[in-house]
């Protein structure tokens, strides 16, 4: 972007009608208006709910209406919220790390070896195009305590006793959930990183080969910096999805046993639609929104810096 000051006409030229200007706004306005109606309005509505004493399980005349920030205060003092936040962070960090390193390792290895037929590519993508609720139920079935295939194999390998099951134990439920997410999303990271690797320019590699650089040095000094924008984009997308994970939690554990897998989305859902505390649930959902906004601003900044340096 140039730092040159724009003239009044350039700044406000769109108000001064010309066919070109009318045309571009005529094309864009429907998107802006529709999106504002269906997203901005509900967000404002939700913020109103977050500021009120709104509970569908209590009689209407006992509700106090507008209560300011009291919902937020209550949540910050609620140990269940903090434990849910901790579970969400643990889940996100662990699955993203494993998916990323697994994905990068496999992508680096596969680079340039196979062209990948259509069928193979489709089946590699299968876990992530299946409905998440179906993924969740399929794994619930595989983890089932009596006849589940995974449980059966784990028991045969003496990795799990007959008195427990993957989803029945407080200690194993969260790892079991992580396995599902890793199963679902590692192929996506492999495919994206592979696409990124294959689009890299060849010139730096030829130069490195002439200089007889070691493969590790090539990876650190050439591949990693060049691949950085792709890595950041895929991390942004995955982190956003992992923080708001809902379907597989709902299908596999509904937050249990105990509170061991009570991720934030599930915690909000439970507060809103099991306990009918709409006001409180809206307030928690705004806290989740703030967290996501902060993370996305950090990542987007990293991304634009990475693009400038490359």
């Amino acid at each position, binding site marked *: 972007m140039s730092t040159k000051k724009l003239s009044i006409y350039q700044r406000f030229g769109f108000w001064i009608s010309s066919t070109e200007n009318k045309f571009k706004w005529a094309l864009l306005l429907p998107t802006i208006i529709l999106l504002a109606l269906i997203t901005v309005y509900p967000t404002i509505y939700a913020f109103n709910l977050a500021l009120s004493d709104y509970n569908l399980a209590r009689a209407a005349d006992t509700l106090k209406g507008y209560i300011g920030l009291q919902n937020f205060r209550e949540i910050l003092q609620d140990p269940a919220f903090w434990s849910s936040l901790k579970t969400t962070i643990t889940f996100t960090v662990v699955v993203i790390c494993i998916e990323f390193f697994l994905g990068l390792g496999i992508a680096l290895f596969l680079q340039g070896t196979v062209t990948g037929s259509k069928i193979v590519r489709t089946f590699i993508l*299968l876990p992530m195009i299946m409905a998440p609720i179906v993924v969740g139920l399929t794994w619930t079935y595989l983890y089932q305590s009596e006849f589940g295939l995974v449980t059966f194999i784990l028991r045969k390998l003496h990795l799990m006793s007959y008195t427990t099951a993957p989803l029945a134990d407080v200690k194993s439920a969260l790892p079991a959930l992580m396995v599902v997410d890793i199963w679902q999303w590692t192929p996506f990271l492999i495919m994206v990183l592979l696409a990124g690797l294959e689009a890299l320019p060849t010139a730096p590699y030829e130069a490195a080969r002439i200089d007889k650089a070691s493969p590790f040095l090539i990876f650190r000094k050439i591949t990693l910096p060049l691949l950085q924008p792709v890595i950041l984009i895929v991390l942004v997308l995955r982190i956003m999805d992992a923080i708001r994970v809902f379907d597989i939690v709902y299908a596999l554990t509904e937050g249990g046993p105990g509170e061991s897998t009570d991720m934030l989305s599930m915690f909000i859902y439970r507060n*809103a639609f099991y306990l009918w505390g*709409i006001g409180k649930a809206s307030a928690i959902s705004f806290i989740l929104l703030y967290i996501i906004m902060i993370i996305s601003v950090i990542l987007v900044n990293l991304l634009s810096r990475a693009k400038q340096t490359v």
Partner: protein
Amino acid sequence: MEKNRKKAIIAMIIIGIILVVNVMPFLWLILTSLKTRLDIFAIPPKFFFHPSAKNFISAFTKRHFLPMFYNSLIISASTTLLSLAVGTLGAYSLARFKLFGDKHISFWILSTRMFPPIVMVIPYFIMATRWGLHDSRSLLVIVYTTFNLPFVVWIMRSFFEDIPSDLEKAAMVDGYSRWDAFWKVILPLSAPGLMTTAILCFIFSWNEFLFANVLTAAMAKTVPVGIRGLVTSRAIEWGEIAAVATLQVIPVLIFTFAVQKYIIRGLTLGAVKG
């Protein structure tokens, strides 16, 4: 040469392992859908058995999945059409013209895509109940447009940017109007992009669970909600779940196969051109 061949063989083995790990749960689902209740509960799990179509039949006769498939189809197709009709125009405008504040506009559009659905579902639930829209197909069409429309704008913008703008200029020199240059020249050229976008929108909506679970009850119930509905406190109908899930996944598989050339690009919002 010898080293390369060795690497190729190991690569094949890795792909083989990935395929087995990926496809195994799905195959197990299909096998389960063909099992009778007795075979499902067998310990150790059975790989060979007499297949039966019982689960498929009872899903449609006893569990009434046909209207749910109809709902899913109508809702997914409508939101896809609406998002494409509106979003393609917006995407073209953002791709071609310098606009006042266009960076902010496109960032805002992207940020609505990043919205967690759980934040949206609560106000939509309250509004729908108040306005008598709960359990209607049109409500779900609107709600699904909240994530499909930003998706269309971002993807289609990236596809339009790939087409050189000289093409429109040439068309306009030939006497096309601004609109005709877009409609008759650029749009046909971006057909593969449009196809991919449409299919991904359809898949997102076809697979969506959270909104549908909260915002429908009976009349507008979609397939994912129906599948989860087979898990009750009394029993879990694994055979029927597997049967319906198999039927739900098959169209998605066919669609993915059709557009897999651009699917990575679509799933990274146009950022990675795989």
